[in-house]
């Protein structure tokens, strides 16, 4: 059952991070994986991007950024919700959704939530 260690792991969080306590589980997994040497990305999409606004990020999202997790937010969903670049919280970057396809094509595990 042994295979090569995971090089990268991406989780896509589409749910409202403030109203959905279970959203924290994904970042918990990413932090564990990061500590095990895996490069980890959390991609916020749909209502997940509501956590990207400065002042709105739940503590577990801040902790994930502090732990070295790359946190991205779908540019389309940010615009749809009126979150301009200058309002995005520190540690979170706007990115194209298509990055998910690139990770899939590279064979990286991508978990959709």
């Amino acid at each position: 059952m042994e295979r090569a260690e995971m090089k990268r792991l991406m989780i896509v969080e589409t749910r409202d991070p403030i109203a959905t306590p279970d959203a924290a589980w994904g970042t918990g997994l990413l932090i564990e994986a990061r500590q095990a040497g895996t490069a980890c990305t959390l991609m916020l999409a749909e209502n997940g991007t509501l956590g990207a606004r400065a002042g709105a990020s739940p503590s577990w999202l801040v902790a994930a950024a502090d732990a070295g997790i790359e946190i991205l937010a779908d540019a389309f969903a940010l615009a749809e919700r009126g979150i301009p670049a200058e309002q995005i919280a520190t540690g979170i970057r706007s990115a194209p959704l298509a990055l998910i396809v690139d990770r899939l094509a590279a064979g990286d595990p991508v978990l959709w939530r």
Partner: protein
Amino acid sequence: MKVLNILSTGYRATLEEQDDTVLWISQAMKRAGAELDLLLRASTVNYVVEGQRVVPLSIGARSQRNAPDVHAQLRDLAGGGATIFLLREDLELYGLLDRPRLGEVRLIGAGGLPGLLSAYDQVWHW
């Protein structure tokens, strides 16, 4: 190819479907030769609890005779060779650590998940 199915949503349309549809598709794929294991977390950890009983459902004059049995679905998957992993932290969170449960499961802690995911060609989250 070996796949890990992570289940996070329990009792999704089980009364309408007479089963859990993710367990069902897993069972169907196993019968077609798929190599897959399951990781139960969040509400799906309750699937391992013994003593689940669906009260016969009647809507007007329409009574449902065959109720879902998610516990038996899991047992079937385990019997078919799937390893059923159970997230220890969630078992505790849902107050199930000391409850009688399905024997054919393996507890895994959150710290073991990166290693577990690494052991599969593909990981799907439901």
